[in-house]
């Protein structure tokens, strides 16, 4: 999933300080799963905005709406009849959601309510960890099913650097050296020799290095 975290309330309050009718729009996709932009969080933010404004003696009207997804135009359309009733919109979706809203509703003032962090998963309740860098050409099968691009601090593809110590990365004791894990796994599977096979350099044109990306699947285009 795409993992995000809430923006600090102070930052959000500052963003919308000039507006008195605000629509908070959540998303039932990834941000619901990582507890940052679903139905509950929309309610919490709306309530917090009201408390903060009432505290300062300023009136505010906060609308709440949760879309199935903010990354599909058909769901974005759902707010077409209400969005003009508000001065500003806070989107609690990942960075995609507020952009889809901005594109669909050019005159609306759209603000991001979360900071999008990475593509990853929940390693335990309340803890998420990065797993994918979205390079556009998956090569994890060369590395025991683990991604050195997303999980090595230097994205090294030819083994650990000198900063690997006792299974940890030199940047922090909280960060596992993925190369330590890869090597141990390949040894356990008796496939260590596969790591020294010659492979041509990875093409980064499919990653961000190739500019903004777009994908067309003709069989799905209507």
């Amino acid at each position, binding site marked *: 999933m795409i993992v995000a975290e809430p923006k600090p*309330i102070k930052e959000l309050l500052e963003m919308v300080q000039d507006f008195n009718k605000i629509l908070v729009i959540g998303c039932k996709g990834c941000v619901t799963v990582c507890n940052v932009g679903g139905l509950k969080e929309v309610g*919490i933010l709306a309530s*917090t905005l009201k408390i*903060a404004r009432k505290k300062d003696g300023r009136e505010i009207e906060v609308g709440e709406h949760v879309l199935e997804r903010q990354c599909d135009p058909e769901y974005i359309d759902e707010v077409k009849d209400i969005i003009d009733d508000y001065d500003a919109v806070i989107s609690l979706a990942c960075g995609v959601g507020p952009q889809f809203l901005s594109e669909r509703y050019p005159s609306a003032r759209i603000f991001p309510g979360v900071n999008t962090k990475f593509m990853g998963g929940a390693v335990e309740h309340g803890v998420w960890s990065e797993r994918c860098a979205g390079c556009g050409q998956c090569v994890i099968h060369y590395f025991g099913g683990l991604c050195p691009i997303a999980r090595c601090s230097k994205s090294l593809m030819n083994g650990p650097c000198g900063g690997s110590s006792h299974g940890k990365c030199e940047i922090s004791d909280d960060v596992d050296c993925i190369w330590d894990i890869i090597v141990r796994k390949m040894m356990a599977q008796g496939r260590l020799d596969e790591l020294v096979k010659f492979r041509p350099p990875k093409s980064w044109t499919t990653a961000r290095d190739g500019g903004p990306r777009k994908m067309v699947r003709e069989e799905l285009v209507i």
Partner: protein
Amino acid sequence: MNDFKPQIVAFCCSNCASSAAAVADGMKKTLPDNVKIIQVPCTGRIEILHLLKAFEQGADGVYVAGCQDDSCRYISGIKKAAKRVAGVKRILEEIEMDPERINIFNLCAGQGQRFVEVAYEMINRLKEIGPSPVK
């Protein structure tokens, strides 16, 4: 002591805190009328939004009265509630309200006296803090 009578919402576990309330009742000890009780099946059911709504509606203070950490009927309800109360404290701090407006207390079913005491503890604390700016 000032005349300010803080309005308090108390979320009480229907197992321990409500039993403590019954014991308090048997001891002829009653809660002051400015403490409104909301009974919940388990404090683990209380969401951050429930606690915020009380403040949004103008409560001067909010507290949760639940079990001891090791005696929740649903195992971890009180621990979850403690984390949510801490979450609301963080939100209050962020919007520059006193985080001491909310608290959590651990009770046993037989602690009738303590059940009433925590209400007065909150009242006294809120008298020091003053009325909620959210009215």
